[in-house]
């Protein structure tokens, strides 16, 4: 069936980058994968509170887990734009941002390891994860604070050939299933200069699974480390050099969340359009009401603007251009578009929109995290202000 997504047919200049013959083919593969392997099971996974490991293996088999990772480290090649296409299509074909978060957690857990380039760590963690055999997580946030990364308190103290780790991490995506956790720890003095990244692959204690508003199929955990001994070889990059690694990867994480936002909006628009065309009130389909059709236009307009700008910034990142402020704009704009669209989508579905049976109900709950995770809307604004020199 041809896709409802007008974007795949739109012929903007940036859009053309996302519609090369290979990317069209990738979109078709992702759509099939989602329709076959995801959609029939998503409700069960939402109830179970996590994704099965088999799904990771299935996604690895078609090369989806490895997109954006070089073949030398076990990836499938491709770049950020290929990842954008994949993320868009998973959601637009009936998946969800929660599914993306749980299935592609390695997208935030592995890049630092790949960046640092230690072949031992690549063999132990990157390859098996991209093959779907291991699950990784990224642990930065702590109960005492998430936005202020430089203030983190989990410590790692060198003792012979090991680090001894103590501390608590919370809100960790895939934390309950994780075989290893790329963990931000304090190895030095206060502030960002004392932060390192360490792969903790043993002694990960799941304090509890956290129950959430949305993203139900993505397990989220509070983790604790008590005198956990980790080999010093698990250090990622230089000691006390972790902060820069974390910040660099935030760019990709944030643009990906922007993609999740506008793709969720697009999906909700598609679902709503189908609904208002068939739902009749007072003898006419809803779509025949000017109020409704103009509302749809506003949903489409905000979605399209978010998509076009976010894709442009993704292309800038892929091209290696400096665009920290633009990433902040993209995330905040896409989240705002998504918030508007999911709300209107539920509204236009009427009472049905409030029921668990309605797909838009799930997107409505899932969407709320997008302005909080990966840097809150406020933190994005603050970062952009500093970048642009709007502070004095």
């Amino acid at each position, binding site marked *: *069936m041809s896709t409802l997504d007008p974007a795949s047919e739109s012929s903007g200049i940036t859009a053309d980058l996302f519609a090369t013959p290979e990317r069209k083919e990738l979109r078709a593969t992702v759509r099939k994968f989602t329709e076959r392997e995801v959609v029939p099971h998503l409700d069960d996974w939402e109830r179970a509170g996590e994704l099965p490991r088999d799904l990771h293996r299935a996604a690895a088999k078609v*090369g989806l887990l490895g997109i954006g990772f070089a073949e030398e480290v076990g990836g499938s090649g491709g770049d950020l734009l290929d990842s954008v296409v994949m993320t868009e299509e998973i959601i637009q074909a009936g998946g969800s941002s929660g599914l993306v978060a749980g299935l592609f957690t390695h997208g935030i857990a592995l890049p630092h390891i790949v960046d640092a380039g230690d072949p031992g760590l690549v063999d132990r963690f990157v390859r098996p994860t991209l093959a779907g055999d291991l699950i990784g997580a990224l642990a930065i946030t702590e109960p005492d604070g998430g936005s202020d990364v430089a203030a983190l308190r989990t410590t790692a103290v060198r003792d012979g050939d090991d680090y001894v780790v103590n501390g608590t991490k919370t809100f960790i995506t895939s934390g309950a299933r994780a075989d290893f956790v790329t963990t931000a720890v304090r190895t030095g003095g206060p502030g960002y200069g004392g932060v390192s990244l360490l792969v903790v692959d043993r002694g990960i204690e799941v304090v509890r699974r956290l129950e959430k508003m949305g993203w139900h199929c993505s397990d989220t955990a509070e983790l604790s480390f008590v005198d956990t001994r980790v080999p010093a070889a698990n250090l990622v990059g230089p000691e006390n050099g972790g902060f820069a690694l974390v910040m660099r990867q935030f760019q990709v994480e944030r643009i990906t969340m922007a993609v999740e936002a506008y793709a969720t909006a697009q999906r909700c628009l598609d679902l709503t359009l189908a609904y208002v065309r068939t739902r009749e009130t007072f003898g006419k389909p809803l779509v025949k009401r000017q109020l409704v059709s103009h509302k749809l236009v506003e949903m489409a307009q905000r979605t399209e603007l978010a998509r076009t700008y976010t894709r442009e910034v993704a292309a800038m990142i892929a091209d290696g251009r400096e665009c920290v402020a633009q990433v902040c704009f993209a995330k905040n704009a896409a989240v705002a578009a998504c918030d508007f669209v999911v709300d209107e989508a539920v509204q236009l579905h009427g009472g049905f929109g409030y029921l668990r049976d309605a797909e838009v109900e799930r997107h409505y709950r899932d969407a709320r995290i997008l302005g909080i995770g990966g840097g809150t809307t406020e933190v994005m604004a603050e970062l952009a202000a500093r970048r642009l020199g709007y502070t004095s």
Partner: protein
Amino acid sequence: MNIVVLVKQVPDTWSERKLTDADHTLDRESADAVLDEINERAVEEALLLKEAHGGEVTVIAMGPGRATDAIRKALSMGADKAVHVSDDALHGSDVIATAKVLAKAIGTVEGFDLVIAGNEATDGRAGAIPAILAEILGLPQVTQLRKVTVEGTTVKGERETEEGVAHLEASLPAIVSVTEKINEPRYPSFKGIMAAKKKPVTTLTVADLGVDAGEVGLGGAWSGVIEASPKPPRSAGQRIDDEGVGGSKIAEYLVGQKLI
């Protein structure tokens, strides 16, 4: 084992399919073009045989420029190379002309052991190309198969019909056609998609194949479409309210339609 798969690009069954007013050939602009699903299955079967016996899979398509999309799909799935026969002279070709051209194109593939086609294209629906090809090439045909195996130099197959299942075999080289029951086609992996870019596609014209342009195309067709009109919209149907005798009213209606 060297396998040739015949793949056709067809208008997507889900999009509106029309004939042009000018010459009653397919209006290619009006519909999305896709690799015929039956041919995805044919490619899948070739790949399975290759995985079991080794060798090479070549896809052949006859069609206009944009048939490269269908070819790319087959290459992304894992076929090794392709032959694309593309020539304006082919516009409006009938079944016989199509078969003549495909036969010549198959001849360019050195040492082929097996040709796999779909049993019937979703647009033309002649269901005749495999048989005509067998005739032209002088090869055995094993058609309408739901299962294919190769043992040594023999191809064996199961043909399912309303009468039952027939077990057929022929010696290689041979032509087989497969039905939609044959398998579930894989979808291209990301690596496959990227690798397809680098696989060889040979584009040939009618002249390259040594076919006389006068024998193909609308001019060379043995039959022609004189008139075409869209099928009339479905009428509203007749509603029967069940007031205890609904069953017999429906039976009456069906008798009236000579259906029972």
